[in-house]
């Protein structure tokens, strides 16, 4: 029989009160603030009054345009070509700067371009850095979610057996998780060092010096990859533990039944283990996706978004804008955009992985 103490509504609220108040102050309120600020021109510290600016922050952030340019021709209509035989095009700047005929492109910069027949298609953006950050973040998520989830499952399968000293392995794989990401990032900066980093020395040693030294974090081609690898390593233990808990809920007799029916290890995984992990898989996938979208600390410690914006990310940009540049409304706008992206993806993942009746 429940006592009055556990049934009283007032007691319940008083118990939950401190936590609820803290959550309201530090989670709900800032969230609502961010939405509100994203419609203003508020700066972090400014003598000017705040003005409502509608959606212009969003237009500034997400504005993109496509400009298709035909090659320049001479008076006979023949395409003008440069010394390499490539056609030459009018400069993009002539459309995006002070051109009254194309007001929609005003202030935009080239994001990327590609050839389409003789024409050249330019994709323009108002905020190229943010767009790069968006792409980098999406790449990060697309690589980290399957790789980290898969590796974590593999490790979980390995440590889900009765072996002498198995807890030692569990502890080792889990260790990076309990170390602060900032510390891990600092350590990996040494590992990735271009001159005497551990990774370069290791590669040099096993290749007998044939692999050249690479400045992993200083090279636009390798910086994001390096951060992905380190991030996967850091959090894989956490998801391993979640997988492990899922594995341990599967009844051992199901494996015995499968063994009696003659299932091979792969068939056992396919027909017993994987279906039993369905709910765990949804959880792991959504958690990894959300964590990956909020990539910040590694960037802040290791590259600061560089080189050449190759490791810019959404959250890094939000912080950079809001506090670095004191543009709190711009930072808020990025946060809201990120929120919408993560929410939509989580909903889609839930819908895709729903239990089919």
């Amino acid at each position: 029989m429940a006592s009055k103490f556990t049934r009283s509504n007032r007691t319940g609220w008083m118990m939950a009160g401190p936590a609820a108040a803290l959550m309201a102050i530090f989670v709900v309120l800032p969230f609502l603030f961010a939405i509100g600020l994203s419609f203003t021109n508020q700066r972090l510290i400014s003598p000017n009054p705040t003005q409502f600016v509608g959606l212009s922050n969003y237009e500034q952030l997400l504005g993109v345009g496509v400009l298709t340019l035909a090659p320049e021709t001479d008076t006979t209509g023949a395409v003008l070509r440069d010394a390499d035989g490539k056609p030459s095009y009018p400069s993009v700047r002539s459309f995006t700067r002070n051109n009254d005929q194309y007001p929609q492109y005003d202030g935009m910069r080239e994001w990327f371009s590609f050839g389409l027949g003789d024409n050249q298609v330019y994709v323009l953006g108002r905020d190229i850095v943010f767009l790069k950050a968006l792409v980098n973040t999406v790449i990060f998520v697309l690589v980290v979610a399957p790789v980290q989830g898969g590796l974590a499952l593999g490790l979980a399968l390995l440590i889900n057996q009765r072996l002498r000293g198995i807890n030692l392995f569990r502890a080792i794989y889990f260790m990076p998780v309990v170390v602060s990401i900032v510390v891990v990032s600092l350590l990996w900066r040494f590992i990735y060092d271009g001159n005497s980093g551990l990774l370069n020395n290791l590669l040099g040693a096993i290749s007998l010096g044939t692999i050249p030294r690479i400045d992993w974090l200083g090279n636009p081609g390798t910086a994001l990859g390096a951060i992905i690898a380190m991030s996967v390593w850091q959090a894989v233990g956490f998801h391993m533990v979640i997988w492990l808990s899922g594995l341990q809920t599967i009844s051992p007799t199901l494996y015995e039944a499968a063994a009696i029916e003659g299932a091979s290890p792969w068939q056992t995984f396919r027909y017993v283990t994987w279906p039993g992990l369905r709910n765990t898989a949804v959880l792991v996938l959504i958690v990894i996706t959300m964590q990956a979208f909020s990539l910040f600390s590694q960037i802040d410690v290791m590259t600061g978004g560089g080189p050449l914006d190759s490791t810019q990310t959404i959250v890094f940009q939000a912080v950079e804008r809001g506090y670095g540049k004191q543009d709190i409304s711009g930072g808020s706008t990025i946060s809201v955009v990120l929120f919408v992206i993560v929410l939509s993806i989580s909903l889609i993942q839930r819908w895709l992985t729903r239990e089919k009746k």
Partner: protein
Amino acid sequence: MARVSLSGIKKNYGGVEIIKGVDIDVADGEFTVFVGPSGCGKSTLLRMIAGLEDITGGTLTIGDRVVNDLPPKDRSIAMVFQSYAIFPHMTVRENLAFGLTIANAPKAEKDAKVAEAARILQMEHLLDRRPSQLSGGQRQRVAIGRAIVRKPGVFLFDEPLSNLDAALRVDMRMELAKLHADLGATMIYVTHDQVEAMTLADKIVVLNAGIVQQVGTPLELYHRPANLFVAGFIGSPKMNFLKAKVEAVDATSVTVGSPDIGTLVLPKANVAAAVGDAVTVGMRPHHLTLGGAQDITGRVVLVERLGNETLTAIVLASGQQIIVALPGDIEVMAGQQLHLATQAERACLFLANGLAA
């Protein structure tokens, strides 16, 4: 169809001997029940036959093959587990066909075998349901169906009815008996429930502490238990054990006596006992009757009325308590003195070493 032969079977876990050399022969088509208290090793023994546990020593033969080192699927066995072990994410049809799916059998073969198993178990209407939509009895039927589809030489049952409620257990017990009659297959059945053992078995193997206590038909075990353990284990309520001393021995009978039972002449031939030996007289509660000769007198301390019989606990002069099962609904009350007649020809006699005389 296959005969099963266990010869000197042993099982150690670490240094602990669980099965201490077991010899059992199960004839082709025989329904054999392993029965014993918890921890007697009966399930371990079954799992060793199935191939789910390694055999430490001895020889296990199924059909004409020694199968000690064969994997479960090659032993021509099918097993039904206490927890059903049906795959929760598969329909009944998929569960029944699991072994065939694993073996890449053609669809026509699968359909035919599933249909046959479903017909035998009368569950055609359940084929497209999922286990979560089935009752406990239906789930166990699916598990039995999956065993039937394998067409094994030997069916192994590991306490298949223990998770069912009492009424359903009685129904399923009858169905299992009918199934055995229909299929004529060799079946080995593990249970701690002696009613299941008595009703289903052609042959019962009583196990205790990893040693076979007695092998025989249900009625042999009931009427001629080989030792005190079997006498106490088979039969409900338990057999009453009364201490006595041998007063006389001749070629066709032995006379025993004690203050509780007076002097009793048991018609046992060639008993290896001498006058003055301490022995134990076993009397089943159903073999004590009211009226007639008044061999035993005691005071009633507890009455349990079951309608068809009345179980009465009686304290004798020495303070020992015995149970008497009196037919019908007899008027007895706590505190009342009862005079009971023994049936000497049905009493058992156990020597000091616990073996039956």
